[in-house]
Each structure stands twice: as structure tokens, then as C-alpha cells.
């Protein structure tokens, strides 16, 4: 398939997923009323439902999925490992420890968010400090450091869950599984997404060269060490923003870049924007399903992404070359 056509189809998919998300919910609103509410008309209740509940939720889902997909694509080239996903370096673990700790201390919603951010940033700094050597940044050391820190965070999470009072555990679990029901304002995440998307486009051709290996990239004139550090911090920022919105939503960061590669998009100049559209659209769709198929019960979207993603990727795999 020609790449511009695929991008157009992906953009259509993203728009359709947003539209579906706005049209469906526990209140049964016909499409024309949703449109009227979007335009600022109609009854106040309908405006509230569409503009204050569904739109922010859809925007949060899209930003979250897009950030995860982009972070996954970036980490796969940085770590030269196709299995890398946004959480492999422990950012989600750090955020989970920080937020659970804040919950246990009874710091409230704002405190939980702050705790998650602090935990994520602490892990980003710790992994970087432990693995970085000036002049040579061995990505295997980086990967191992991240995996070890991640395992440590996992143990701390289990410890905190054991210590938590039984009534609080369910709320914590939802957060660990990934759930957009508690997402705050997606504005910051959209800002990060816009910045990363632009930055990614600017450096995409260097990323292509880096995918041939760091030494090769240097023979072709890439300043490898600054680029690697830039990828690390960009992917970390993207992952942390996504985790703060929706917790640890699995599979999007791994699935989106690979699905695109299996469709023949291997050039990062096309892969990064495609990943934004696919990841964002996919998570918006999954989140819409999560909050409607079992309504009024809301499923954690992390469960849905895996349930939808596994068969999708398995379907695509035989087409890979």
C-alpha cells in the first residue's frame, strides 16, 4: 500500500474513533444532538455530557495512546530491541510506587498525581544516572538497568498493595491495570504530544540511520550520543505523561509500531506520525468499548487493549515479510 494512502486511512481511523467515542456513552444521545452540543447549542445537560465528559475522555484516550505508541517506537530504536515497550525502563513502575504511596498516605487525587510524577521522574533520573557513561552509552546496560529497576518497583508495588487497607486496594488495582476513568485534564499530555511529534519528525531520518546500529550511524554522520540521550528523555516524557493520565495501559506502545512495520512502514519519517494516529485511534476505540460494552460497569481499558491487540497482531504477523 502506498504510504500517503495509509496515512490518510489512519487519519480517517483516528477521526472515526473520536467520533465513536463522542457518540457513545451511558446516556443515549442521537448524533444530531451530540453535534449541536459540540457546536455549543442544545440543552445544558447534553452540553455537559458531550463537552465535559465525553470530549475530555476521548481527548485523554487519544493523547495517551498516541504518546505510548510514539514512546514505544522511540525505545525500540534506542534499545535496538523489538520487544521494547514504553514501560520497559521502569517509568510506569516508578509512577505506580509514587502514586500508591501517596494513596496510602491519604494525600488525595492531586497528591496521587504528584506522587506518580515524582516516582516516574525519579526512575528516569536513576536509570539514566546508573547506565550513562560519557563517550559510550551501552544500550544493553541501559535496558538491563531499566529492567532491574522495573522489577524493584514491581516488588514495592506488591508490598504497598499488601499493606493497603482492603477497601483501597480496588482503586489502586484499577490504576495499575490502566484506566482512563480517572484521567485528569488531557491538555498537558496534548502539549507533550505536539512537541514530541514535531521533534520526532525533525529527527526521523537520524532515527532511521540509528536503527542500523550506533557505530554505523556515526559513520553516516549522526551525533549518536546526544541523539540517544534525546530519545531517552523524549520517550520518558511521553510515557510519564501517558501514565499520569491513564495508569499503566499495556500493549499500545508495543502493538502500534509493530503493526505498522508489518504493514510495510519501516521508515521513521512515516512510522512516527503513523504511530501517533494508530496508537491514539486504537486507544480511543478501546476506551469507548471499555466504557460501553458492559455499561454501566466500566472495564479498565488496559484489559481491552490487550484483548483487542493480541488477535490484531496475530492476524498481521503472517503478512510480515
Amino acid at each position: 500500500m502506498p504510504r500517503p494512502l495509509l496515512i490518510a486511512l489512519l487519519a480517517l481511523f483516528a477521526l472515526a474513533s473520536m467520533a465513536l467515542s463522542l457518540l457513545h456513552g451511558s446516556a443515549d444521545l442521537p448524533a444530531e444532538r451530540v453535534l449541536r452540543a459540540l457546536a455549543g447549542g442544545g440543552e445544558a445537560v447534553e452540553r455537559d455530557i458531550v463537552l465535559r465528559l465525553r470530549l475530555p475522555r476521548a481527548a485523554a484516550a487519544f493523547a495517551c495512546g498516541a504518546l505510548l505508541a510514539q514512546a514505544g517506537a522511540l525505545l525500540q530504536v534506542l534499545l535496538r530491541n523489538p520487544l521494547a515497550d514504553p514501560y520497559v525502563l521502569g517509568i510506569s513502575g516508578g509512577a505506580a510506587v509514587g502514586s500508591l504511596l501517596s494513596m496510602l498516605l491519604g494525600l488525595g487525587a492531586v497528591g496521587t498525581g504528584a506522587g506518580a510524577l515524582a516516582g516516574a521522574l525519579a526512575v528516569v533520573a536513576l536509570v539514566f544516572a546508573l547506565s550513562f557513561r560519557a563517550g559510550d552509552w551501552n544500550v544493553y546496560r541501559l535496558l538491563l538497568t531499566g529492567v532491574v529497576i522495573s522489577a524493584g518497583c514491581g516488588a514495592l508495588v506488591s508490598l504497598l498493595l499488601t499493606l493497603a487497607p482492603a477497601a483501597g486496594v480496588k482503586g489502586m488495582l484499577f490504576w495499575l491495570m490502566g484506566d482512563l476513568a480517572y484521567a485528569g485534564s488531557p491538555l498537558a499530555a496534548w502539549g507533550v504530544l505536539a512537541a514530541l511529534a514535531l521533534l520526532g519528525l525533525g529527527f526521523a531520518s537520524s532515527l532511521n540511520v540509528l536503527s542500523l546500529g550506533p557505530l554505523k550511524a556515526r559513520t553516516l554522520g549522526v551525533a549518536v550520543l546526544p541523539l540517544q540521550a534525546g530519545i531517552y528523555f523524549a520517550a520518558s516524557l511521553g510515557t510519564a505523561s501517558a501514565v499520569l493520565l491513564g495508569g499503566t495501559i499495556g500493549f499500545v506502545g508495543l502493538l502500534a509500531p509493530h503493526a505498522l512495520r508489518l504493514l510495510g512502514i519501516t521508515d521513521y519519517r512515516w512510522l512516527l506520525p503513523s504511530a501517533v494516529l494508530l496508537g491514539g485511534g486504537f486507544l480511543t476505540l478501546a476506551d469507548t468499548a471499555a466504557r460501553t460494552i458492559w455499561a454501566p460497569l466500566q472495564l479498565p481499558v488496559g484489559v481491552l487493549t490487550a484483548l483487542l491487540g493480541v488477535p490484531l497482531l496475530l492476524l498481521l504477523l503472517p503478512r510480515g515479510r
Partner: protein
Amino acid sequence: MILECRELAVGFPGRSLCRGLSLEISPGECWGILGLNGSGKTTVLHTLGGLRPPQAGAVRLGARDLAQCAPRERARALGVLLQDEPQAFWGSLQEYVLMGRHPHSRSLFGWEAADLERAEAALERMDLGGLAERPLGTLSGGERQRARLAQLLAQDPAVCLLDEPLQHLDLRHQMEAMQVLRGLAEQPGRSVTLVLHDTLWASRFCDHLLLLLGDGEALAGATDELLTRENLERVFRCRLQEYGSGRARHFLPGDGPRV
């Protein structure tokens, strides 16, 4: 463009591969580097290519200290063919060869027509014309080696450093690759330096040699003076027999003991 080094020392902490090496690779020259496995051919080549810092001394490219050149600027003037590339590449052969244009590329999106033409010409010269759309991973070992050579041709640097350019190539493609590389060295302003194992190619195509003796010593100079049985026995530490004459001389190990 001249690539030169003065009093270069190359090695690893606790192990010296080469000391006090001074040489000047001038336009029009074709250098061969010979040495035993582990004698430092690759390390010397990488140091000359600016991929690793020397233990002592300096490498100059034209009028500039190589360490002071910006990466892209260096890659436009100097290209290195690596001995191996562990990285799996997801794209097609054409996309792979186009990466050689990275240091020249001025556009963020896509390639300019000139880049595409150069890549196509490079593929033709390496006898890969019909394979451009094939995924790189589906090519044979020898075809992939030619793809890497084609990428270097597309990069089009004045100074080419190649680490075992003939590995995996069949006899005909070895010959064609050497002819292309020799032709490159004869273009104005260009030089080619090759790590080789076969003395026949060194004798036939190289006008200068760098012989690494493995103990930190190295011999550098004109092929006519250096390509002797005595020198090569010091390099390879075994008895050698000389065959042929003139530019078709080559050496093969005899039955004698190691020396």
C-alpha cells in the same frame, strides 16, 4: 583530500596494538592493511575514521583535526565500511543504500532526485540493479555485502576506509568490487584504504601497504618495497611461498612450522 596521522598510538587499556604510526594517505592512492587476526587492523581503521579516539597522536583530514570535525561534515568527506553490522534492517535494499545519502540530505522528508539517482547508480555498480525493492533481510550474505559497498558508494566520500570489503563475495564479485574501488581511488581528490587478507589483491590493486606486526610495530610504505616474503612472514608468523610476479604476486603458506 589528505588523511594523515602523526605518532598515532592505538590500542586498549593495557594492550598496545600500534605505536608511533605516521602515514599520509594522499589522493590517488590505494592502501592495503594486512595483519593477523587480532593485530589491530579494524581498530586502526576506526581510529583513522574518527570512530574512536587515539591513545596518543592525532588524525588530520585535510587541514582539520579529525576530532574537531562535526559528524555530518566528517561523514561527507570520509566514509567507513564496517566489518559487520549486527543490526537487522526492516526496510528494502534501496532504502538501505539511500541511508548513505544521510550526511548530504537537506530535506527532512523524503529524498531529493539526486540522492535517488546516486543510490540507483551505486546499486548498478554493485550488480544489484534488479533487487532494489527486496527487503534487505532476504538477500544472501554476499548480496548484503555488496549492498553495504553500494551504500558507501552512495555516501560518496573523498576518503574511503573499508574493513574487509571482499568478505562473502564470490570470485567474480571480488574482482568487480576491487575494480570499482580502484577506479574510485583514481578519481581526482580521492583515496581508498582497504583491510585485506588476500595478498593477491594487495599486490594487484594497492600502491601502498600498512603491515601490522601485532606487537605494536607497523610498516607503512610503497607496495613494491614492502610486499616481500620476509615482511609477510613477519606479519603472518608462518612460512610463505611466493607465486607469480610483478602485479600478480601472491603468497600462500607453505608446509613449514610457524615462525
